[in-house]
């Protein structure tokens, strides 16, 4: 039969190519290749990366039906394969905690698993079985919606490079010890944690992403950090707690990150950094810091402005700056403390590399105008300054524009772009 059509085009390609083709197919299609021909019968069985997503079983509105068929499918695929499994990912919103998960993880722990991603559906959190802690070759662990409780004898994942915990129930001690026991950890992401006071000791850490209600964050031993993104939510407890502490958060947080290249702070981050900043000078110069993005900055609060200024003046190589206000418009004509700006002795600092500035959610606060004035007046290579007001209020915007037009510009190439919503 194949003489009429021509020679087989594909079955004799090397296994590495076949594997790279099969791995780029959705898992169902990859398994289906087993009935193509006798040579293809077991080609799928040795692929080392298994990804089960929402499309791996036929759609149905009944969640339980889908869950059952997903469980069956995964169990059978695991059973029918042979060889090591390097990546195992379940990203399925219909699957919730079920007893088979323990068996799968046990099976994986015996098959050299390196990357494990489990993102199950909303519902009951599943409890991580102890066999996970025996996965000595793990390099990447992504968990969401589960209970993570390492045994006392757990010595850490010696090969782990990337850890991502999202909505995971874990005690603070366990997190800290987990982080410190993974010496190769390069990327850490913790999200949706409640009331966590965290001290991070990770000598190889390069990327840090934190999102949640943090009482306190101390970067104790993170000299190689290159990128930090923090979104801090606030509750009343935490706000009270903030009032009471006396040390400087700026130093605690940014005191040990000389290689920082990108800093992104959201929600209450600027407020967090502002505590205790009055008394101290910035701890160091961030010579590699090229991008700063701060969102939800409260321009009413001078101390937060101080944080921004300290960051800017400690970053001689800053190239890109993005600041987003907090969507408030000044309701009353208040008399802000303009002495503040003179006190800061900003006239002799220049931002020699700053090229792009983006300001959004601008409400027309006086301090906003002052910052713009400062940036325009001290950035000799500035190319773009774009401003997006937070509301379309002709009066307000007009006021802003009038002030802007008055500003002196250090860069002849600077374009000031005012975008109307």
């Amino acid at each position: 039969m194949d003489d009429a059509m021509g020679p087989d085009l594909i079955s004799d390609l090397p296994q590495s190519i076949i594997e790279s083709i099969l791995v780029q197919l959705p898992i169902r299609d990859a398994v289906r290749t087993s009935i193509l021909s006798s040579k293809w019968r077991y080609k799928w069985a040795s692929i080392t990366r298994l990804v089960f997503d929402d499309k791996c079983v036929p759609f149905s509105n009944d969640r339980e039906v889908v869950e059952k068929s997903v469980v069956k499918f995964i169990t059978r695929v695991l059973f029918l394969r042979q060889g090591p499994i390097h990546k195992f990912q379940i990203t399925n919103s219909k699957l919730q905690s079920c007893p088979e998960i323990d068996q799968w993880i046990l099976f994986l722990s015996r098959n050299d698993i390196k990357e494990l991603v489990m993102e199950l559906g909303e519902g009951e959190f599943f409890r991580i079985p102890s066999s996970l802690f025996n996965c000595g070759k793990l390099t990447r662990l992504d968990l969401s919606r589960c209970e993570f409780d390492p045994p006392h004898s757990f010595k850490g994942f010696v090969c782990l490079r990337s850890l991502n915990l999202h909505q995971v129930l874990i005690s603070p001690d366990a997190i800290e010890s987990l982080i410190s026991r993974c010496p190769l950890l390069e990327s850490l992401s913790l999200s949706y944690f409640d009331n966590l006071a965290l001290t991070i000791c990770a000598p190889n850490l390069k990327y840090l992403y934190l999102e949640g209600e943090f009482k306190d964050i101390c970067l104790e031993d993170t000299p190689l950090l290159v990128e930090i993104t923090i979104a801090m939510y606030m509750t009343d407890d935490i706000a009270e707690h903030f009032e009471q502490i006396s040390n400087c958060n700026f130093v605690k947080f940014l005191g040990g990150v000389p290689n920082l290249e990108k800093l992104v702070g959201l929600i209450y981050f600027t407020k967090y950094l502002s505590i205790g900043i009055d008394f101290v000078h910035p701890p160091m110069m961030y010579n590699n810091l090229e991008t700063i993005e701060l969102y939800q900055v409260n321009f009413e609060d001078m101390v937060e402005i101080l944080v921004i200024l300290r960051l800017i003046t400690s970053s001689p190589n800053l190239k890109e700056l993005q600041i987003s206000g907090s969507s408030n418009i000044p309701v009353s004509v208040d008399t802000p403390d303009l002495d503040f700006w003179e006190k800061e002795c900003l006239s002799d600092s220049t931002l020699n590399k700053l090229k792009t500035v983006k300001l959004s959610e601008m409400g027309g606060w006086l301090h906003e105008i002052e910052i713009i004035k400062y940036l325009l007046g001290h950035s000799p290579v500035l190319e773009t300054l774009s401003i997006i007001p937070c509301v379309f209020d002709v009066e307000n915007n007009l006021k802003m524009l009038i002030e802007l037009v008055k500003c002196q510009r250090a860069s002849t190439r600077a374009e000031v772009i005012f975008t109307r919503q």
Partner: protein
Amino acid sequence: MSEIDMAVIKPEMMKPYIWLETSDGSIQQVEQEIAMYCPLICQEIIQKGMGSSKNCAICLPQRVSPATLSLILDYCHFHQVPGRSNKERKSYDEKFIRMDTKRLCELTSAADSLQLKPLVDLTSRALARIIEGKSPEEIREIFHLPDDLTEEEKLEPLKNTTDDPRIRLLNRLYAKKRKELKERERLKNVEAEEEHVDERSVDDLLSFINGNDGDPKGVKTSKNKKKNRRKKEQQQKNSSLKEASEVNKEVNGQNIRHQSAEADRIAETSNSHTEDVFAHREFDDGDIDDGIDPALKEKIDREVEDFARRLNSDWPERMQELLSSGQERKTILFTPNGNSFLRRNACMFFPCFE
């Protein structure tokens, strides 16, 4: 060694062209900068000093034909320019990859042999996109794959047939029949019974298997003329199977043909194994009826047990057995009817991993 040193010692090395020899023996000159984008060529030049003249042209691997080489060189020519943006590269790749499947496969193979990983990734992604979402027939058509799996092998192993209520019913019937058989054995004398010669042709037998109402008596092996006992048991066995498939037909009125295919498949599996048993037995102490019967009965029991166990057992074992018994089954000819029957059902079964 600095560049200046190299230029002084071996001026030929700084020539911008190198020589490559393709699988058909033809030698061509190629700009060194472009060719060096391929790790294998780069290695040959630097580590072995090859390629500087026609005599020591670099021999490219077998899988690189001249046409494929020219495609690869186009790719290298574009990508080795450093100043291009990611967007430009992506859009070039999308256009580059538009070619017929045969050339795409050859290109993948050639890129792999030259260790040009970015091109291997690009081409394998394109091949994956071709395969994705297509039916097995379409894929076989595109890649000229031989359709050489048996129907059983195609019935997707991921479908768990033991969950099927029809199979469970079959199992129960088998168990019942086995008990009856044992009973009859005990009651019977060791007297020769009426000889029953099976004269049915293979076709008739097959139509019986495929669920047509036929003669419920007997089965193939006409060699067993003397072994009446065995034959009788075989008859009973088959009638039980026939019954089973009939019962199945009743059980689910809707999908009669669907079921009997299932039942038939199992019936046929069982048949082939009993056939094995008989074939084996024949050459042994065939003349001593007494000696055989209890042993045979045991053999049958074991066989049915085995079959029931197999139906309920783990998949890898089942697969093994299907594979090994596939040899025997291949000798059974399918009537055209039965064949398309199963094939249609194969397509039905396959997509749904229940």
